[in-house]
């Protein structure tokens, strides 16, 4: 706000304005692919939500659409997972990662048309894959259900995105490699390794490994997609938007370094905790449990770093939509990771494994953390790419409260319900010969499954608010002159860095 006299007379002479002009040019160069990825992500989010509601209702009312074969629970559940993972989450990851990479490397995206092509390929691949799942061609391998005929399309799309992100990084003007870029580079490298190993050693019939080694490949892949793709991209976004919106640097560089490398080493091994007590070697289960527990290190280090950055600025949560979503996500990253470390203990897994607790944990990580951070990122990125503001602060507010409360209600209901289910299944009530009847356990879990549907309705309301605001924003006319960012309320003494 303290413009010098020169700058006020000639904006071009101000170094600040020159920097803004550069950022503006970079943002503009990402416009077409960012819009394509974000638009299709939002569409998949809605489709995935519909699948989710159908699956959730079927859980307590199995006659609902009971005679429709292509919507039978086992198919619609897989369709939900793939729509929200490969449709929503990966599309939005691509948009956010590419935009962040361009800004942080200080490089315009060249030949953005290739990225638009990649977006088209990716969405064709996901569409073919989900249609295949509904038609009965699912592989029934969790997180890898997309049938083999759709995989090459996805692979081409990913190769283009990965190559373009690296080119953008390589030819940028920035001298410094910011912490967000470590995470982005790592994620961009890890994902193709994970995906191709999983395809070769698990999905393709000719080259698949045998017996329960398949299960090890399965959970090495599935957990690492979370840990080595979605988590790094979510953290990259937090590391960027937290200081950006607050207008101050990340608290500690050294904590960032420690957090990054401990995540890289420990998360890799954590996936085996999905097989605790199963027919795989005990040593590898133990290694998985140890790694899962060691995840406490990167999680706490990152949490402390973010918290100390936020210290003194919590009032900004009242104003900035981006900050509110991102901070909500960051807090839930800490919570869900600590719960995950706890859940990997053998004694805890004996009760909680195979129950709704797992479902709660999955949604806590992928929704309350990752998806919320991505919403925050979208609220920041789109106005800069489109040069328009969000039309309605009320809709953003509705979006936040519906998804925040909805996702926490779901996580809470399924955590309590899952633990109750697990205790009912495993406590012998003093009589080792007579565990509780399975149907009795099921009957007592039903109320929690109904709560999941109610919380799902709340989340759906949030998604509709988001979709309306997004469509409205894209369709509205651009106003001439300068505009103000859309905030929840006016911030008298806070400058929102642009």
């Amino acid at each position, binding site marked *: 706000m303290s413009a010098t006299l020169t700058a006020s007379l000639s904006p071009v002479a101000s170094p600040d304005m020159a920097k803004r002009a550069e950022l503006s040019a970079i943002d503009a160069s990402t416009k077409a692919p960012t819009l394509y990825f974000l638009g299709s992500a939002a569409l998949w989010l809605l489709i995935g939500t519909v699948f989710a509601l159908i699956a959730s209702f079927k859980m307590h009312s199995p006659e609902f659409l009971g005679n429709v074969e292509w919507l039978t*629970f086992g198919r619609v559940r897989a369709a939900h997972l793939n729509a929200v993972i490969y449709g929503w989450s990966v599309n939005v990851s691509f948009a956010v990662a590419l935009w962040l990479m361009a800004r942080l490397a200080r490089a315009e995206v060249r030949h953005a048309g290739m990225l638009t092509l990649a977006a088209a390929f990716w969405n064709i691949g996901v569409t073919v894959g989900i249609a295949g799942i509904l038609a*009965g061609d*699912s592989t029934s391998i*969790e997180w890898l259900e997309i049938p083999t005929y759709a995989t090459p399309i996805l692979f081409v799309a990913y190769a283009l995105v990965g190559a373009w992100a690296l080119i953008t990084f390589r030819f940028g003007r920035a001298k410094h490699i910011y912490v967000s870029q470590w995470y982005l580079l*790592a994620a961009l490298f890890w994902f193709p390794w994970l995906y191709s190993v999983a395809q070769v050693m698990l999905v393709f019939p000719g080259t698949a490994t045998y*017996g329960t080694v398949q299960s090890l490949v399965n959970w090495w892949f599935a957990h690492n997609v979370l840990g080595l793709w979605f988590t790094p991209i979510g953290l990259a976004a937090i590391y960027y938007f937290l200081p950006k919106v607050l207008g101050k640097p990340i608290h500690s560089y050294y904590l960032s370094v420690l957090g990054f*490398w401990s995540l890289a*080493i420990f998360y890799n091994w954590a996936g085996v905790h999905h097989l605790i007590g199963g027919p795989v070697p005990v040593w590898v289960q133990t290694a998985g449990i140890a790694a899962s527990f060691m995840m406490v290190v990167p999680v706490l280090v990152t949490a402390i770093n973010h918290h100390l950055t936020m210290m003194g600025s919590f009032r900004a949560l009242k104003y900035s939509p981006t900050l509110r979503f991102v901070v909500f996500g960051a807090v839930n990253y800490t919570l869900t990771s600590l719960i995950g470390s706890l859940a990997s203990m053998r004694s805890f897994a004996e009760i909680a494994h195979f129950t709704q607790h797992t479902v709660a944990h999955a949604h806590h990580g992928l929704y309350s953390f990752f998806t919320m951070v991505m919403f925050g990122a979208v609220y920041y990125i789109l106005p800069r790419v489109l040069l328009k503001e969000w039309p309605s602060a009320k809709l953003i507010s509705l979006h936040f409260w519906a998804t925040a409360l909805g996702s926490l209600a779901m996580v809470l209901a399924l955590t309590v319900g899952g633990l109750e289910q697990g205790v009912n299944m495993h406590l012998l009530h003093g009589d080792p010969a007579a565990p509780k009847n399975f149907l009795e356990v099921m*009957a007592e879990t039903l109320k929690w499954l109904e709560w999941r549907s109610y919380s799902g309705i709340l989340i759906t309301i949030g998604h509709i608010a988001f979709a309306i605001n997004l469509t409205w924003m894209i369709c509205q006319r651009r106003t001439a002159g300068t505009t103000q960012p859309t905030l929840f309320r006016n911030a008298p003494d806070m400058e929102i860095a642009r």
Partner: protein
Amino acid sequence: MNRAPLIFLGIFFAIAFSWTGIILTNHLSYAKLQPVYDEGEGKAFPEALPGNAQRGAEVYRDLGCVYCHTQQVRHPGYGTDIERGWGERGSVARDYIHEKRVYLGTMRTGPDLRNVGARFAGEGGRNWHIQHFYNPAEISKITLGNKTYGSIMPPYRFLFETRPIIGEPSPHAVQHLLPEKDQPPAGHEIVLTQRGEDLIAYLLSLKDPPLYPEEAKRVYVPKAEEPAKADAEAQPEAAK
């Protein structure tokens, strides 16, 4: 951390480490487990599934049964699988060597199916599956207090076909197993589709043999006669 090559090396080794440890090591050490020949029985175990059951496994895949049913029995002392009658022993890696795709599963919305062929066998088992697939909530139900709760397994009526009787009624017609409300119109009969037949054949075939000699040396199995002694000696770290 401003040196891209160093960052890249670290990233590379992090994933190479877990890939080598979790996947490559185990692939080399036990992916090629072999069946064990039993001289008393004159055949090797585990046995490969018969052809119709293998087709049934494809139906199991296509309908996504794995999302609600596990196929792994936990070892005695960990969970209550044995007490529930889901198997006589915990599952071991050798049980799965013939399976084109392994359906261990991660969720028990429904019961474990690893030995469902032992619980529901023969003609009676087949009839039970037919009735259950048609009306799960009416075949599996429980009354608690004054409310009755039916199974939440979805109905699989699309595995059946209602068709007009042409000439002789089919000997495979199944409507006599179904309740009054599900009877077909006059002149029609209900038969299982081929996929339904295959799926039931698969479920009837799911049953693991007694423990193999090699695993019997290493995996904890309680001895019925002397449980206290078995607890003391034959339980290293594996069962806890």
